[in-house]
């Protein structure tokens, strides 16, 4: 049995948005993890493994865009994240799954990543900071910003929906 296979695949699938790419990335990651496992010291291998998965995925994303050098992600450069005050608790409860998935896929991978790691994998801020290699303060602000952007994307998508939206 391969430990944390689902967690690894989930992160890769969300980052790469492509099933076959995600499978290849996860396979890559496990091979690398196997090679460097003797250097692992700790009680929970999941964040460690997810770091490797994440790095493999970002390499592939860069290859897709054919950028030579990694650009540091600029949290501010992705448009003002206005806070839609209209969304309320009731609206969130009615949000459809497909709409949520579509909205999340529209976000930049760095925003998607923190949301997936936090909401779906249940990692704490500290663990997300380790996996994404950013300070905890950045995790907090990026997560808050990602949530705002997700909300805005949902509103935009819902407005196009023929039936009830947010």
């Amino acid at each position, binding site marked *: *049995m391969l430990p944390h296979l689902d967690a690894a695949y989930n992160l890769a699938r969300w980052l790469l948005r492509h099933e076959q790419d995600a499978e290849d990335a996860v*396979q890559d990651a496990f091979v690398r993890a196997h090679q460097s496992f*003797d250097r692992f010291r700790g009680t929970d291998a999941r964040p460690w493994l997810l770091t490797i998965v994440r790095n493999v995925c970002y390499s592939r994303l860069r290859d897709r865009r054919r950028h030579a050098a990694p650009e540091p992600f600029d949290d501010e450069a992705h448009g003002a994240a206005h806070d839609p005050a209209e969304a309320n608790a009731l609206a*969130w409860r009615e949000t459809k799954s497909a709409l949520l998935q579509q909205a*999340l896929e529209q976000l930049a991978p760095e925003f998607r990543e923190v949301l997936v790691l936090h909401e779906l994998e249940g*990692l704490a801020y500290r663990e997300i900071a380790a996996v994404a290699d950013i300070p905890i303060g950045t995790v907090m602000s990026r997560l808050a910003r990602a949530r705002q952007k997700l909300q805005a994307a949902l509103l935009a998508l819902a407005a196009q929906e023929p039936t009830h939206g947010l």
Partner: protein
Amino acid sequence: MDCNETRRLLDADSDGELDLVRHLEIEAHLRACPACAERAAAIRARRAALRESLPRFTAPPHLAAKIRAALPSAAAPVAVSAVPVATVSPAASAVPTGLATAPAASAAPSVFAAPVAPSAPVAMVSPAAASVSAAPAAPTAPAAAPRAERAAKIIFPLWQFAGLAASLTLAGLVGYTWGHARAHAGLVVDEAVADHIRSLQASHLNDVASTDQHTVKPWFAGRLDFSPPVADLAAAGFPLTGGRLEHLDGHPAAALVFHRRQHAINLFIWPAGPTALSTARAARQGYATETWTQAGFNFLAVSEIPAAELAAFAQAFRASQTPAVSP
């Protein structure tokens, strides 16, 4: 605390990432401020929507086999077969609880069994052995480690061949089912202990923080497709302090949080289905665990309190679920 400060911290608070002082300050503000309270409710609803509606993708069935085939089987993997390998080297600090060994009868070499090196051997503890002998194994580990390591080096190439033949024959035996169940139970304990540790490290113990069982129990409705039994064992010295959603053994589960003095106890609850766990006690890395099944639910308690106290907790919980017999 004013509205601006509260709004700034609401996200982190609902994520359970704030220290207790600020959390209480925010709670106090929310009680007095309907606008912020409404915002907090929206944040909670958003969180619930994300967790419930966002797909969490699981690996396609063929991927595991594909990966195992791609992993090099050289460099001294320890094939876990019917023979328990039961040494835990103190130098390697801890066996990662998230990494599980293969079921007892599988022939596949255990993934992430590290190369057996003289300086810091990390031996995978077979679940069957661990649940029985983890406690006595620990004190003898320093002496046993070098011997077992040499033995493992000698034995393992044989086991790689023999293991394949053994698993084929074992598959036809009743013993396979028993071993698989034991191994499975051990894996579930591993997972639960990892969840317990993570909940403590992140201070993310509670999604719902309340000592009132009549608040905690209904909180799970709509979030889980079952209603977990909840009890307040304050009279027995184990007050209920809250609960949260968890995931265990492939199932959504409820985690009830109790406290014993300042120590947390996580009680994981999920429907038993066909895979009811047998009553068992096990130790992992200094944490005591107790497993049992009652009224169609699996229960798994994890805590750092002594095993005897955890046994008392389990006993008290089981008793609370049994209708009192009137004389």
